């Protein structure tokens, strides 16, 4: 349990119960997920029942209770991307990474999710990795894109 990191995050916020979401964001960024022991520690520190924190963590898509990969791949499955063959991109990614959508690779390097329209329909089919948007992706480009993110 990495309590030092959690206490460091808690110190960024003023005392009180109103900062839960902000705290969870930082914990999510630091650990790439919300670990149970750390959530219980936060619950004691900011005096919010663990059930309430669990509710919030479950409610928002941004938060995950299982470890996410270092690089988060989001394949757009909106209408335009779908028409332009995002299914093929997804299949290629699943094959290359040897995981199904919604899962994370064993080395915690990549996690693969599908998202609804990201508003880049002109670039369909689009894939977002971390903060970068890759547009007009073709299945054979997938390997090259992934290699940029491999350690």
């Amino acid at each position, binding site marked *: 349990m990495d309590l030092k990191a959690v206490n460091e995050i808690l110190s960024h916020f003023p005392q009180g119960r109103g900062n839960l979401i902000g705290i969870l964001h930082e914990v999510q960024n630091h650990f790439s997920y919300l670990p*149970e022991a750390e959530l219980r520690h936060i619950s004691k520190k900011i005096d919010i*029942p*663990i*059930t*309430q*924190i*669990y*509710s919030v963590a*479950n*409610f928002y898509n941004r938060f995950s209770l299982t470890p996410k990969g270092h690089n988060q791949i989001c394949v757009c499955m909106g209408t335009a991307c779908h028409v332009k063959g995002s299914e093929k991109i997804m299949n290629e990614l699943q094959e290359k990474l040897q995981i199904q959508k919604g899962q994370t690779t064993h080395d915690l390097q990549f996690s693969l999710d599908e998202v609804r329209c990201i508003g880049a329909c002109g670039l369909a089919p689009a894939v977002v990795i971390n903060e970068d948007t890759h547009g007009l992706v073709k299945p054979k480009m997938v390997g090259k894109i992934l290699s940029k993110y491999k350690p």
Partner: protein
Amino acid sequence: MAKTVNLIINGKKIKSSAGSTVLEAAQKEGIYIPTLCHHNALDPEGTCRLCIAEFSGSIRNSIRISCIQEVKEDLVVETETERINKSRRLILELLLGRAPEASAVIDLAAKYGVTKSRFLTGESNDCILCGRCVRVCRDKIGVHALCFVNRGPARKITTAFERLSEYCIGCGACANVCPTGAIKVEDKGDQRKIFTWEQVTARFTLEQCEHCGKPFAPKRYLELINKKAYNPKGLEFVDYICPDCFKQHDRLSDKRREGALRKAVNKWSVPRG
């Protein structure tokens, strides 16, 4: 004295104290408004939507839920118009689609002539997500053992991390307030299990009654009662007597309590002056 407010519900002139809700005012006058999520002991949350009514007069003409709307001067409320009943039938159909086997929902739906639902999912779940259990656990018992998780169709009631709850005290208040029986308490011998949606969310060994030896309540529950009711100063004083014995032996337990209270007072009283 609280200020009184004049309003009209279903053509009847009503006086109600300011700050109460329209549903409370109607119930006080014997006007029936159907509801599943409202409970007199709990704060309203407006989840079942069955208590809708047409509002006009001092607020904009609209359909609102009466369990949350506060009474207002010159408010006009209609609870059984055709428009309301049409909406109510749809709400009942949706509830019935989710919980086709819950007798509370079936009975209420039948009252409004809804016997079939277009929204059956093939699954049956008695819970209608009214949140009474969450509210009683959070606001009244104060142990926060239950919560809502997920959202949309995946929304459900469970404990933190969906495991046996370490906060639950086994009081059974959640099962008690549940309108549809989706939460159950099962006592077998000296074991108590609480089922939330068929999932066991708490398991307890019941403490024995000091008089008859019958197992009757979990330890954590007695401890909380002790802390809340008898024991503001953290003294050790627990009456391990089941309700039946308590009624029979009330003189005896009165004596016991008097003795213990006297001890407590002697211990904590500070000489004045």
